[in-house]
């Protein structure tokens, strides 16, 4: 890989307040141009926090951020004023989980796309409206001309998410951040949106970070998957590699606890316990308390994320590539 489009080095995010929550700890990863990376993990693992940090959306008075983020040659942490405005939406755009909340309810969908285009590219109204219409057609919204003047609440969930994608892509960003874009949708609509994202990514060559808790969705769109746990990446690999041979006990447990028909009549394999409290993280591996392979060393010392080619792993006792997951202990 030559210079990556996105490079994150040692990113840490702390939320300060009554209690201090360590949301992200020493996160480092890279993303090439045209690449699709899925951040996979459960609630509270820091995947959405990562996306928000990339867009600098965290309120400065309640957040302590350290580390480096570089996108396309820019030092994101140093951006201010107009440069930051241009960066948000022009270089990096985001699609949210709840398009019903992300759209402004008092402007039509078309108007919001027009505003984005005019602010970023300085085109006149008529041109912007024409481009907005093209965007809606591109995301396969039926009767696009009519939908241009619709308000967000007049659209169905799937259509709203398509409109959200149109808005995000209107200014041709180089990096699209998708935060659980299909979680709130029905399965039949979810697969349509996943296929649309894949198609648009191929067409535009943009890079995508796709945040999800659903392994199935990650497998459908991602080239590479990074598994997150308690604010750190614990394993990273190509999608095929991770699915075929997860090496971190947590990744293996996550894959194994996906419910399928093969489990009928049996007790499901689970990961015991629950994720740790982010305001009181243990000194060692955060997963040690739930892991069957853990020993005193795991509890005392944090394993570093070691890279080996395309794969990366942070574990003292990795599973063998062919081994059965040790995390499969009955509840």
């Amino acid at each position, binding site marked *: 890989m030559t210079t990556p489009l996105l490079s994150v080095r040692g990113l840490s995010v702390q939320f300060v307040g009554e209690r201090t929550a360590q949301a992200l700890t020493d996160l480092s990863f890279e993303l090439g141009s045209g690449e699709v990376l899925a951040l996979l993990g459960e609630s509270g693992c820091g995947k959405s926090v990562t996306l928000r940090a990339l867009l600098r959306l965290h309120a400065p008075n309640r957040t302590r951020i350290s580390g480096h983020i570089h996108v396309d040659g820019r030092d994101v942490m140093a951006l201010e004023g107009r440069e930051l405005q241009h960066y948000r939406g022009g270089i990096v755009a985001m699609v949210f989980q709840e398009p019903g909340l992300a759209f402004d309810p008092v402007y039509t969908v078309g108007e919001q796309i027009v505003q984005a285009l005019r602010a970023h590219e300085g085109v006149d109204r008529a041109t912007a409206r024409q481009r907005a219409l093209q965007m809606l057609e591109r995301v396969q919204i039926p009767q696009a001309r009519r939908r241009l003047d619709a308000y967000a609440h007049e659209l169905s969930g799937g259509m709203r998410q398509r409109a959200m994608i149109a808005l995000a892509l209107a200014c041709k960003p180089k990096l699209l951040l998708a935060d659980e874009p299909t979680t709130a949708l*029905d399965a039949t609509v979810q697969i349509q949106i996943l296929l649309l994202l894949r198609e648009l990514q191929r067409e535009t060559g943009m890079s995508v970070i796709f945040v999800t808790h659903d392994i199935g969705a990650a497998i*459908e769109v991602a080239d590479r998957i990074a598994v997150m746990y308690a604010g750190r990446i614990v394993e990273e690999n190509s999608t095929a590699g991770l699915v075929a041979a997860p090496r971190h006990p947590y990744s293996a447990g996550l894959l194994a606890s996906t419910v399928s028909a093969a489990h009928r009549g049996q*007790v499901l394999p689970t990961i015991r316990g629950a994720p740790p409290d982010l305001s009181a993280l243990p000194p060692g591996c955060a997963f040690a308390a739930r892991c069957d392979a853990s020993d005193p060393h795991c509890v005392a010392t944090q394993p570093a994320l070691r890279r080996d080619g395309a794969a990366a792993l942070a574990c003292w006792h990795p599973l063998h590539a062919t081994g059965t997951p040790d995390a499969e202990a009955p509840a």
Partner: protein
Amino acid sequence: MNESTPIALPSLVDRGGPAQPLLIIDRLRKHFAVRGSKAVVRAVDGVSFTVAKGETLGIVGESGCGKSTTARLIARLMPADAGEMVFDGDGVGQFGGMALKDYRRNLQMVFQDSLASLNPRLTALDAIAYGPQVHGLGKAAALSRAAELLVRVGLAPNQFGSRYPHELSGGQRQRVNIARALAFEPRLLILDEAVAALDKSVQAQVLNLLQALKAERGLTYLFISHDLHVVHYLADRVLVMYLGLVVEVGPVERLYAQPRHPYTRALLSAVPSMDPARRTERSPLSGDPPNLINPPSGCRFRDRCAHAHAACAAAAPVLRETAPGHWAACHLDDPSSGHPEAPARAAMAFTA
């Protein structure tokens, strides 16, 4: 925890024996008026089914298909416009039938939003003990039963009993909700997307708990979910709803292996492949489910169906038994419907 505590509440006994369905739902209907217009939303439009004792009936369908409204109608959280319910041989809320208060004790519900369904001012123990006290159990007895139930759902009472809902994680709250539902020793549990909001690893724990409780207490489940994997794992029979109607119902293995209704087939193939080498390349259905205010005439699925024909617009298909216990409402399964593909399909069905 298996020895039952002495209780003041009369226990809920099986009356009709195993052959009598626990619950019979007959032509249940609920239309909602649209404010400021004469239009109505046909949320549930004539739904009939039975739930056998000790089975898990899964109800699946897209959002807006009426599955949650059906659950709320059954739990009597809202009145139905029409239709009847018979619980173990007794008409519910009818003259000479079962009183609503008794019915509600026989049936409990667990909702998707574990935080919204708990009173924020009650601790876990108080929340579980509240219902039985309303029904006449003494406070001390109710609290000791609540503590036992907390233990059973895997939460230590001295650690979690005095916590308020916001001090518990999502999985822990859903365990409290399950314990609260069990406090009445109900016979039927309606689980409305009860595991949908939980993380995968926690979801598996709660599913295991539900399976164990069912076996232990002889419960019957009505399990409503949009997650076809979970329904496949848990359910004995599956009912598929589309726009307020039942389009297919059958034993789980048969329905998943040989779905009859084109909608069921589309729903089943919309599940992600889980194999990076064989990703889904084509979406089985286009568009969102149509509007419930003005559903298409005849078969409500026809404008998204690959097999649609003039016959589908002319008349609404009714449920027909295509194999023992397997019913589908599609003109393809009715040789007399006038659908050109129907006779060939019907012949196939008999040989299968």
